[in-house]
């Protein structure tokens, strides 16, 4: 909530005082996107939702195959489907696809860091590595 409403913005790029010219974007700034116009239309959102629903159904169905197929294969399949759902929500509903690359980089940094660190962590406890 705090983040959502604390809309204080100090325009660092404000050059009006002294320069007397219109504000110019700060050096290194990416071209500004008029977000409202590039967000997809509701129809697309619904389409994504349909895909998500189908994927969920397939996921649940897949989980019932337990015992009939190789469980590693099952885990990989479920993991891939979860990742696809994750990607769809992040890319479309959270607008990462259209929004500035800054968000993508930051979020991916956290995500990759989490996966790598916790991946190594779990690897620790696998019987081959943890052997005193």
């Amino acid at each position, binding site marked *: *909530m705090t*983040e*959502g409403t*604390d*809309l*204080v*913005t*100090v*325009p*660092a*790029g*404000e050059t009006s*005082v002294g320069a007397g010219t219109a*504000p110019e*974007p*700060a*050096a*290194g700034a*990416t071209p*500004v*996107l008029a*977000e*409202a116009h590039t*967000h997809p*239309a*509701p129809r697309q*959102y*619904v389409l994504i*939702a349909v895909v*998500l*629903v189908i994927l*969920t159904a397939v*996921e*649940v169905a897949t*989980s*019932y195959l*337990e015992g009939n197929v190789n469980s590693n294969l*099952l*885990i990989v399949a*479920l*993991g891939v*489907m979860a990742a696809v*759902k*994750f990607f769809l*929500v*992040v890319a*479309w*509903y959270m*607008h990462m696809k259209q929004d500035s690359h*800054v*968000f993508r980089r*930051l979020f991916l940094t*956290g*995500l990759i*860091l*989490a*996966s790598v*660190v*916790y991946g190594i*962590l779990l690897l620790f406890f696998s019987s081959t590595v943890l052997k005193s």
Partner: protein
Amino acid sequence: MAQAVVTTGSSELAPGGHADHSHDTNTGVSNPKLAIWLFLSSEALFFGAFISTYFLYRGRDTQFLKGPTPDKLLNIPFTSVTSFVLLMSSLTMVLALAAIQRGDHRRLRIWLLATALFGATFVGGQVYEFTEFYRQGLHLGTNMFGTTFFVLTGLHGAHVTVGIVWLLLVWSRSMQGRLPSEKSEAVEIAGLYWHFVDIVWIFIFTAIYLIPTH
């Protein structure tokens, strides 16, 4: 007369219908949006810790057999339905945003309420599930499944609850007429949080309910 504007952010001060602050910043993105994304990437490490703890301890209850095991407890059809509801709340959330962006405040309120309602349904399902498991003998200390399951899903549920309260606050602001279209970013930011909580559930659902436990 010179007016060196420092704070143009709050809606009351925003110059004529110009909600997009991106012109003002070095990266071209607004401060609050940048902040929420940073916060969410931090949350990734928070949930990552609990999910990896869940994976580490998964199956250890067979070693220390005590109490009911997940394959006896989990009601996959039921949780699939509540997961589906949560997934749909993401759709309504994004529709709410689309509504305010085109200035449709009536639909904004409807979709916001729908999102909160879906979220509440999900949390309600979780409460039902918790009580059901508790009735069947699974407590926090019964076995490692009890320990990891309740804490991981409980913390997620707490996040959803915070999200519901947040959405209701946004909704009440809109009802009071304090949420003009220029301030659509307030909805967008609440939405980012909401979607994040949803995608965390995508993984938790797969990890706990779908992946076989042995």
